[in-house]
């Protein structure tokens, strides 16, 4: 087992990782920008190292300073957390070259999945359903038109190296296709460093369901069930996640889990990862992409399985064998997570910064709060807007929703605008309550309601 882990991240996820390390009796090093000098993870960690000024590119994305920080503190592993360097193959490679264990998949695995077109191919070969699409990158307009005639409209043009909902265009007909193909290539080249694009059938009214997998270095891979993540804002950022997914039969759920394990096995995946699927109205599912790291919403999986994912990540990275067999992993009850963000729902969810003058967190039975905020915390304007995750568990979904409502009623944050009220509106929504959520839920059921109210 490791003796000391450096956490190359900030905020609530850094706190989460420090807690896991402490329980494993592993010492911790927090790295931080000058904007986070007084942050909770810095105070909690055994050591801390300032790695640069506030802009992420100068600090949390500054590989030489982070690796150097690991060296001067004698850390033997780096946990990249979520975002920042967590999916950069070259960072994983640099860590290994410097004798530091990167807690995540190998650089080779990451690279294999970073090209979306080749990832699709791999999945398709492994028997994982993929959305009907072009065979790899589109070479010419003719090829695109041929595919479109075969598959039908609407279609999506996707940048091969895009991600997180960026670099995607919807086309409705032939004229549209030729015109947008050029624009998509130019945009992709500028945004992702590669002009490669591919075509995909547009799955209408889909749900976003993802499966958590966990693999060790000896080829043993299990899944920890799925998460329903269709409640997203207009920038495709998840707002509210739950496990298990709703409106799936037991058979559909186990097919999803098996497909995810096949997918992870096909690429020799190691450590924690997530396979994202689009699920259509009939419950048919299509591989979307793989997240080669921990997810913000990993907590709902922990609550229904009783498995501490971050500890598992660390154990697997230390070369331990996975002690879990698929059969032993049981799912109990229903978990929900609300992301509480510093943002202004009345101003198009613009990120809010400022000083939190008072914070009152919910608590009690079936409630977990993961956060880095405290009274007098200064929300820096440089990073993502996540302030806290409120996670609840109960026997079933209806009870979990009621518990979450109780928690958001208790929760108070003063000094910055938050989306607490907005989350309460989601929980109150009749469609949400019935589980009628597709990825356009927020726009269709919540924001449209606001527009109607203001008319």
């Amino acid at each position: 087992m490791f003796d000391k882990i450096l956490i190359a991240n900030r905020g609530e996820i850094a706190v989460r990782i420090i807690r896991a390390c402490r329980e494993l009796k592993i010492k911790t090093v927090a790295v931080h920008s000058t904007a986070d000098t007084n942050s909770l993870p810095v105070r909690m960690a055994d050591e801390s190292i300032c790695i640069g000024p506030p802009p992420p590119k100068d600090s949390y994305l500054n590989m030489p300073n982070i690796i150097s920080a690991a060296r001067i503190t004698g850390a033997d592993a780096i946990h990249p957390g979520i975002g920042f360097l967590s999916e950069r193959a070259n960072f994983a490679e640099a860590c290994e070259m410097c004798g530091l264990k990167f807690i995540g998949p190998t650089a080779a695995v990451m690279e294999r999945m970073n090209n979306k077109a080749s990832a699709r191919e791999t999945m398709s070969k492994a028997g994982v359903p993929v959305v009907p699409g072009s065979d790899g990158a589109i070479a010419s307009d003719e090829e695109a038109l041929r595919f479109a005639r075969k598959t039908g409209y609407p279609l999506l043009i996707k940048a091969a190296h895009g991600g997180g909902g960026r670099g995607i265009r919807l086309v409705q007909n032939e004229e549209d296709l030729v015109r947008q193909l050029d624009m998509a290539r130019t945009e992709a080249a500028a945004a992702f460093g590669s002009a490669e694009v591919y075509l995909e059938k547009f799955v209408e009214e889909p749900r976003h369901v993802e499966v958590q997998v966990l693999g060790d270095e000896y080829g043993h891979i299990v899944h920890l069930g799925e998460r329903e993540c269709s409640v997203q804002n207009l920038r495709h950022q998840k707002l509210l996640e739950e496990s298990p997914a709703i409106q799936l039969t037991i058979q559909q759920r186990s097919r999803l889990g098996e497909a995810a394990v096949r997918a992870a096995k096909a690429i020799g995946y190691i450590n924690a990862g997530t396979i994202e699927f689009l699920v259509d109205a009939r419950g048919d599912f299509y591989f979307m992409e793989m997240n080669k790291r921990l997810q913000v919403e990993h907590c709902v999986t922990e609550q229904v399985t009783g498995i501490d994912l971050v500890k598992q990540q660390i154990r697997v990275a230390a070369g331990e064998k996975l002690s879990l067999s698929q059969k032993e992993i049981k799912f109990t009850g229903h978990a929900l997570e609300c992301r509480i963000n510093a943002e202004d729902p009345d101003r198009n969810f613009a990120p809010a910064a400022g000083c939190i003058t008072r914070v009152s967190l919910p608590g009690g039975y079936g409630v977990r709060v993961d956060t880095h905020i405290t009274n007098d915390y200064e929300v820096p304007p440089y990073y993502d807007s996540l302030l806290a995750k409120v996670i609840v568990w109960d026997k079933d979904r209806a009870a979990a929703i009621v518990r979450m409502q109780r928690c958001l009623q208790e929760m108070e944050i003063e000094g910055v605008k938050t989306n607490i009220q907005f989350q309460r509106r989601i929980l109150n929504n009749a469609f949400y309550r019935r589980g009628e959520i597709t990825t356009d839920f927020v726009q269709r059921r919540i924001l449209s309601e606001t527009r109607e109210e203001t008319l």
Partner: protein
Amino acid sequence: MNLDELEQLVALLQNSNVRELTLKQGDKRLTLRRETSRNDLQTEEPEMLHPVELNGFQVDFADEQAEAQAVVSAPYVGVFHHIRPMTGMGASVAAGQIMCAIQSMDILNEVAAPAAGTVVDIHVQDNQPVEYGQLLYTIQTKED
């Protein structure tokens, strides 16, 4: 930074013979200046105040003399190394002159003087690990 902290600082300034006080946090900066008469200044002894941490803010003090100082802080995380010849106490440096190196991922990154002057303080030792922003040297940029 809240009002209480500001009041503490104002009190600190009023009870000192410091004329100016600068706070930095990230790229924010706050400067407080005390009104002084010429008379006051003449009866004061020049005095050097070292930077201190106050509620997590780095506070630099500047009086008439200290305004003529420059600090060199670490632009990289790594291990501090003197160069040959070593930039010692009292050494004269030209603006842009290499003063030391910070070893980061097996690469020696050179650190240059931000201004011409005389080294009046060295805050680190050879082979010492340093973090970003750690104070390395103080340079007196004006002749007395």
